[in-house]
């Protein structure tokens, strides 16, 4: 019977079963360098797992969310307080976004300090930076949808910052706001970006990133390229990834139950509340713009993003000039220190 069913499907989907089985087998037998047995080297899969969780919980939230200035806040309240398990799904989504930022950041830190981006993997680092930026955009548009005071003023301040970007700033501002002011158009655009464009873009970036990792193979530790042993992806690393996934779910569930996301105060365009602050991952930028002149601060952020994106090429150039100096240690440590400093500063100011 199963043979007949198989034949029926194969007639309609004419694939070569043997080569497909070989391809799947190859994926499972992918040689993984032995240093990946340490947990902190196995963070790469966490953003993907979190992305899948965000996708599922996000789709569920759209069943009840209404993207209109009059109803957005009320619909979030309804999800959180009246829909069965609504607080749980929203909590998973909210904490998932926070963990995703942390997971990508930690993965990038690991890749940076081990110079995993070195030739020929430079382009995959660039894609990684894009993944991080798109994730931050998703977080920004996401918490703007709640339409509480933080959402509204974050959308106002955030889009105003864009205005200072040379050449395309005003265009970006008008594109995002759907005009010159924050209006209903802004909310629907943020909604569109948050549920369609950005997730699709992120999905494509993640797919390309993973394919590139597979094409190059997982990078071995620098200086140990020839001596480091490998082991097959399946079963050890596969189960490793599953355990990471389960751990994430446990952490997310616990955070949601212990610290469910609140609602805040409904957006009021007439009053900017005292002590308004963005989410913690934007504290650094927020503090920087407080301390520096606006245009200078924005230019500094742009320069930092450009240097960070193309760092593998810059690092390669520096390495040729000064082969004995590990500049990436200085640059990476300085950036991590400044980021932490500004974040903690903003936290307590």
């Amino acid at each position, binding site marked *: 019977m199963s043979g007949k069913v198989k034949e029926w499907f194969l007639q309609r989907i004419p694939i070569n079963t043997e080569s497909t089985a070989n391809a799947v087998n190859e994926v499972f037998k992918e040689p993984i360098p032995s240093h990946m047995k340490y947990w902190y080297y196995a963070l790469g899969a966490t953003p993907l797992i979190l992305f899948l969780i965000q996708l599922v919980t996000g789709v569920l939230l759209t069943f009840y969310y209404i993207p209109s200035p009059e109803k957005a806040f009320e619909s979030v309240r309804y999800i959180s307080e009246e829909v069965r398990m609504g607080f749980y799904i929203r909590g998973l989504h909210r904490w998932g976004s926070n963990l995703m930022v942390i997971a990508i950041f930690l993965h990038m830190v690991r890749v940076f300090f081990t110079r995993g981006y070195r030739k020929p993997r430079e382009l995959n680092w660039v894609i990684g930076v894009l993944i991080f930026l798109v994730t931050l955009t998703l977080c920004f548009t996401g918490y703007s949808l709640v339409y509480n005071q933080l959402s509204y*003023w974050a959308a106002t301040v955030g889009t105003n910052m864009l205005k200072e970007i040379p050449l395309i700033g005003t265009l970006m501002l008008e594109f995002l706001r*759907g005009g010159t002011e924050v*209006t209903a158009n*802004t909310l629907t655009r943020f909604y569109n970006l948050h549920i369609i464009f950005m997730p699709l873009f992120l999905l494509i970036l993640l797919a390309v990133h993973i394919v590139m990792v597979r094409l190059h193979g997982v990078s071995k530790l620098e200086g140990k390229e020839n001596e480091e042993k490998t082991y097959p992806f399946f079963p050890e690393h596969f189960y490793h990834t599953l355990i990471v996934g389960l751990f994430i779910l446990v952490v997310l569930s616990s955070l949601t139950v212990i610290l469910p996301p609140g609602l805040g105060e409904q957006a009021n*365009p*007439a009053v*900017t509340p005292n002590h308004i602050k963005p989410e913690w991952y934007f504290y650094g930028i927020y503090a920087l713009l407080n301390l*520096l002149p606006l245009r200078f601060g924005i230019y500094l952020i742009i320069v930092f993003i450009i240097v960070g994106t193309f760092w593998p090429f810059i690092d390669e150039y520096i390495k040729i000039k000064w082969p004995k100096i590990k500049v990436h240690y200085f640059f990476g440590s300085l950036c991590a220190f400044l980021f932490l400093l500004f974040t903690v500063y903003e936290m307590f100011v």
Partner: protein
Amino acid sequence: MDNNDKKKSRREFISKSLFGGGLLASAGVLLHHGIKFIFPEEKEKRSRKLLVGRVDELKIGEAKEVNIGDRSLFLVHTNDGYKVLSAICTHLGCKIKWEGHRDRFYCPCHQGIFSPSGDVVSGPPPEPLEEFKVEIDKNLVYMWIEETTGGIV
């Protein structure tokens, strides 16, 4: 290349050019219409004269908030007379507050401080508050303001 081939290649060239040109033109029209759709039309702004207060309403050094549509403004009585200032901070667009006891405008987002006449006193704002034209007629204070355009709200 004989005459027939030449004709054929000429015909091919013309047909491909027409096809390619048509395709490009259609894409251009589609792009143009798409961009027009994405960026809402900025309607011609008309200036309107509006009554915002009475001359004897505020003492020197006092201010009051005035809301016109969804725009927030402040009417201030300074030593130089009446002024109408925008309540939107010139740094990143947050709404400022009038702190009468300190004789200043304060922005809660990045702690920008403006004087009663709208000049930057301290903090990150790059320029003074937007000022509107004021007219005094008999005992009444009027201001001139452009109607804003935006989304459906």
